[in-house]
Each structure stands twice: as structure tokens, then as C-alpha cells.
């Protein structure tokens, strides 16, 4: 079965400006991306005087996956970067969310977090030199292992809107809709369309 999604991004980082993001997909072994963008870097967006708190990337994320197994369902990992006071490019947040199961339009607002330095001295030097602690591979936020040794601070949100289309889920016997959606009282809606 396959799944596709196309989604723009909308960050909310109060107090920060000139942000860009990198995204990538993390998926299991049975998943293969067949078409579309697997990774991307967005443009640098800034706030305007008209709406000083909103930031918009509208970065399209068009991807199609093929799989034989729901294990390893794709997650999108987003990392946001921006300049600090001295002009260095530093990380502003990491976040990850699973691509929704059900077809249709979904909006997800994911909270982001940023790694923290272990000691006060390191905190000061990293602020000064612009070499803040960051993950060597952002994909680590998509899994739970190895997190017990990290310390992070929450910072900001990113809103992703997904448009998911699936194929052959029913054919393979997968059920993703809650059982009350199969209520025959929804019948009149589909009946009306047959008239055409």
C-alpha cells in the first residue's frame, strides 16, 4: 500500500526571526519512497510589520511511499535554524511527528525542543561562539532510543498541514477509520452522489 502527503509548514517561534528549516523523513526498512522530495531545506523567512508573530514557509512536501508493512510508518523530522545575536547559524528546535494514517487533510502543531548544554561554562561559551549543542543526526528525534542521556528545553512550535492519500489499504485488509464511521446513517451522503 502507498501513502502520499503534501504539506506546507508554519513555524511559531516568538522572539526569533529569519528562520529556515530542514526536514527529512524517517521510515522503517519495509518502506521505500517512490516519488517526491525526501529531504529539503526551506527558504529563510522573516516576520513582517503587519503580522509580527507569524512566520510562514509554505514549503511543499510531496512524497509517495510504498510499503508492505505498517511497521516503520514514516515520520517527518523537522529542524529549525536561525541566526543568533552574533549572526551565527544556530539550531532553534527539533521536532518529529508521524504522517497521519487516515486519508484527508490534517493539521499537526508539533512542539520543538532544543538541546541544552551540560554545564554553565559550556552554556556561556556556546552562546558566545555560536556553537550551540545540536544533534549530529536530526533523525534521532524520530526514535526513543538514546534519549536518556540528552537534556533539552522546549522552544517554539511548527504547524504542518498534511494531505494524505492512501491506496490499497482496504485491499490488504487494513482498517484505519474508527468503527463509527461505518455507520449506515452516513449512507445518505454517498447515495446523493450516485444521482449524478
Amino acid at each position, binding site marked *: 500500500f502507498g501513502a502520499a502527503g503534501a504539506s*506546507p509548514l508554519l513555524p511559531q517561534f516568538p522572539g526569533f526571526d529569519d528562520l529556515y528549516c530542514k526536514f527529512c523523513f524517517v521510515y522503517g526498512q519495509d518502506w521505500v519512497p517512490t516519488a517526491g522530495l525526501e529531504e529539503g*531545506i526551506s527558504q*529563510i523567512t522573516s516576520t513582517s510589520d503587519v*503580522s509580527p508573530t507569524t512566520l510562514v*514557509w509554505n514549503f*511543499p512536501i510531496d512524497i509517495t511511499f510504498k510499503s508492505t508493512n505498517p511497521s516503520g510508518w514514516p515520520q517527518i523530522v523537522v529542524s529549525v535554524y536561525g541566526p543568533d545575536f552574533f549572526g551565527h547559524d544556530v539550531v532553534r528546535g527539533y521536532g518529529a511527528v508521524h504522517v497521519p494514517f487516515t486519508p484527508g487533510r490534517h493539521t499537526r502543531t508539533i512542539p520543538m525542543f532544543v538541546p541544552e548544554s551540560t554545564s554553565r561554562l559550556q552554556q556561556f561559551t556556546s552562546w558566545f561562539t555560536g556553537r550551540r549543542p545540536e544533534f549530529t543526526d536530526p533523525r534521532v528525534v524520530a526514535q526513543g532510543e538514546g534519549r536518556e542521556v540528552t537534556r533539552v528545553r522546549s522552544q517554539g512550535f511548527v504547524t504542518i498541514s498534511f494531505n494524505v*492519500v492512501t491506496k490499497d489499504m482496504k485491499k490488504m485488509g487494513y482498517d484505519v477509520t474508527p468503527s463509527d464511521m461505518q455507520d449506515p446513517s452516513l449512507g445518505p451522503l454517498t447515495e446523493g*452522489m*450516485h444521482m*449524478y
Partner: protein
Amino acid sequence: MTLPGTLRLFVNGEIVSAQGYEYDNLYVHFFVELPNQWSSPAFQQLSGVTQTCATKALGWENVAYFSYPFTLELFFTQGAESEESLPQWPVLYFEVLSLDFWQRYRVEGYGSLVLPASPGVHNLTIPTWRPVELGAVAELRRFFIGGSPELEDITYVRTPSTFKGERLSRFGFRTETTGSVTFRLYCLQQSKAFLEASAKRQCMQSVLDQLGGFSRQSSVYSVLEAFQRARRRMQEARESLPQDLISTSASTVHQLQEP
């Protein structure tokens, strides 16, 4: 009724309003981009421009209500070779521009909208951004003279049409967030596949699954059509035969049967 293996998408759309923009006298210019397997009838206009509308203040924002209706009729045909991949849905690209006192226009924002894959009513508010250049000169020029950096290829808002590859990078391109545009779309889908779906009311099987089997069905359909044509030709030929030939053949049959 559509041919088997075809989905007809009929959209009654409306550009409702644009809000949160810096300048007044806004208008929206949009066009629809059709991916490979999509087509539209010859009369179908795939682009449009709204009227120029002055804004009014509503709360914190300045809103311009366009109420600009448009209709789209598009056909999706599932090809045999692309049964494995999922179809790409058409995208509506739009730009918001403002007209100043000197009749010069400036770009207020670019945005894009993927047409919804599910039928029904959809109210969508799409935020937009406009390209900016570093430094004060470009902004001063925009304020005093009018004119602004524009995108040469509006499909850059999503994936540029000339882009091939897996990793898109827009790094280095600077934009500023501007307002948003609200669309209301009423989507209707028609396909032979829906008729079969009524029998299995319980499963909300996607029409895409059923369109897939139609390459075989369409070849069966074309065989049936060819048979019908041949039969018609035979009937016409039979009519044009001289009558006595038919009657003698009938009498010889009788004679054969007698003894």
C-alpha cells in the same frame, strides 16, 4: 457518465477574501497547474484574475472581500503503466498584488493550494510570503516607487516545474511573511467506480483502488466496442444484399430439410 478508469473532478471555487496585507487595493491572480495524467476540456479556463478591492479594517487586520467565483472541470485518467504510483493532484498557484495610486503594482504574496482529494466543502486559509532582498534599498524602492522582487516562475512556490531530484533546497532565498487568502472549494467527483462502491457500503474503499483495475476493463470495453461496430457493419451489409439471394438461400434450406 465518465469512461471507465476516469475520474471527473468538478470544483466550484470561490476566492473569499484576503487579509493581513500591508497595502490597499488588492487583487489575486491565480492559475491551476495540471500534472501529467490530468486534462481539462477545451473551454476550461485554468486561470483568473479578481477585481481590485480596497480593504476595510476588521479587528486587527485589513480585509478585502473578493467573493470571486470560479469553476474547474478536470479529468483524471489512470494510465496502465502508472498503476503503481499515486496520482498527483492539481495545484492552484496564486499571487496577491496591490495596485497603487500611480497604477503600478507590487507583489504582496505568493501561495499555493493543492486541490482537495476528498469531495465536499473545504474552507482553506492559505498564508503567503513575498521575496525580499537584504538591505534597505529594495524596501525603500518598494515604498516610494512601487515594484518589488518577483518570482519568475510561480511554480517555485511549490516544487519548481524544472526541478528533478529528491532534495529541494531553497536555502539562501529570503522571504517575508505577509497575509493570507481564504478559499472556499466545493468539490465533486464523478466516476464509474462510485457505482460499484455503493454495493459495499461498509468499506470506504478509495476510488483510486478501483480506478486501478480499469486498464484491463478498458481493454475489455474496447473489445466490446469493436464487436458492436463489426456487428453493425455486418447488419448493414446484410441489408444491402439483393432480396432474391436471401430468399433462395432460405428455400434451399427448406429443400434440404424435407427428405
